[in-house]
Structure formats: structure tokens, C-alpha cells
């Protein structure tokens, strides 16, 4: 896979950084002219991954979220990494409406949104703890 451009961002795991994070990734994609709808899909998917790191990953003190993105032709690959508690059962966590925080009015739709707004979604435990969320989207494919 030929990588034409890439970016890397490290932010404090705070909800006030979510808008910043999703805007940066969307702006990074602008050079390959995605549609307005495709950009809003990217923003929503990034927001889901970053929100999860803010809300679920760091229970005690807040940590760092790393966001990497690369462009390969008109496909964007995005990685959202944390060093938090990780997920015991990833298959279950990815099911629609599954949440470990129903009392906080969480919908359990985060992974489902990432999966359906992007072309691919991969969720993996990181060596040494934390979660790695990888997703990609090709801008030549027509959404609905």
C-alpha cells in the first residue's frame, strides 16, 4: 500500500477535544476531495472512537489519545489509540446497543456507527494495555 500523506495527533483524553479531533481528521482528508456526506461520516466515526477513549478507557486519571491518519489514493486509514483499561470481550462490545454504562444514558451504538459509516473497522487490544481502533474509507465508493 502506497502512502501519499499522513498525520499524527496526540491529545488529552478530554471531551472538549472531540470537536477538535474530528475536525482535524476531516480537514486532513480534504486534499482528496471527499463529498460533504463522506466528510460528515468521517467526523462521526472519529468522534465515536475518541469519545470511547474519553469515556471508557481512562477510569481513574485521564490519559492520552493518539490519532493517526494516512491517505493512500482516495482511501483514508484512521487509527485511534488509547492506553486505558481495554475491552474484555471485543465481539460483545461491538454488538449494537451493547454498553457497560447504561446508567449514564450511553446508547451502545458507537461501534455500530463506526462500522456502518466507514468501509472497514478493526478493534484490537494493544500490547501493554489499551485499545486500538482502525478504520478506513474509500471516497470513490458511493454511499447511499
Amino acid at each position: 500500500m502506497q502512502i501519499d500523506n499522513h498525520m499524527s495527533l496526540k491529545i488529552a483524553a478530554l471531551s472538549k477535544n472531540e470537536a477538535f479531533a474530528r475536525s482535524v481528521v476531516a480537514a486532513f482528508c480534504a486534499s482528496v476531495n471527499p463529498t460533504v456526506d463522506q466528510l460528515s461520516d468521517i467526523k462521526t466515526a472519529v468522534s465515536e472512537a475518541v469519545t470511547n477513549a474519553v469515556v471508557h478507557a481512562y477510569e481513574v486519571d485521564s490519559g492520552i489519545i493518539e490519532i493517526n491518519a494516512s491517505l493512500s489514493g482516495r482511501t483514508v486509514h484512521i487509527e485511534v489509540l488509547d492506553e486505558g483499561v481495554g475491552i474484555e470481550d471485543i465481539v460483545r462490545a461491538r454488538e449494537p446497543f451493547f454498553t457497560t454504562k447504561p446508567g449514564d444514558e450511553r446508547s451502545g451504538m458507537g461501534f455500530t456507527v463506526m462500522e456502518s459509516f466507514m468501509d472497514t473497522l478493526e478493534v484490537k487490544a494493544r500490547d501493554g494495555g489499551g485499545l486500538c481502533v482502525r478504520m478506513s474509507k474509500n471516497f470513490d465508493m458511493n454511499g447511499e
Partner: protein
Amino acid sequence: MKIVFKTVNSILYVGISGELDESMARQARESLDAMIDEADMKKVVFDMSELSFMDSTGIGVILGRFKKLKALGIPLLIANPTKAVDKILNLSGVYQHMPKVMF
């Protein structure tokens, strides 16, 4: 994010504008609940024509208010969602609980 309220003919219209995510969820919940608790209405309409962004945190906020209103016997409607917001509302099955209206 900004929330404005208006009551017309016992219908509470709630205009939610800007971006609704985790950083705004608490504020949204508090102002919506305060209004629901004090107002006397037969129906609530969330006007989302000016809501440019919402993620699944917003779905939780909406469903939470829906449950609260349902317990009071008050129907909730979603009005004029933008395309991006409509997509996530659809995916999350929100329209199975409350109707969408366009005006």
C-alpha cells in the same frame, strides 16, 4: 451547541443547534430536563434543522428524554433533522420510538 424553547398551543418546541457530542451532553440533558419538569405541555418537538453534528452520545440524550416524557404520557417528535443527523437517528432506530416530521 445551543438550545432554545418556545411553547405554541401547548406544544413545546425545542430548537437544538450546533454540535451535540459528549462535551455538550450534560448541558443538553440539564436544560432539557429542567424545561420538561416545569413546562405544562401535551407534546414536545425537537427541531434539529440547525443541528450540524451529532454522534451516538446524542442518541443517548434523545432516548433518555424520550423515556422521561413517555413516563409522563407526553409524545416526542423529531423535526427537520439535517442529513448527517438523520443518518445516525435512522441507524440507531430512534424513529421506531418517535416519529420524524418535516415542516
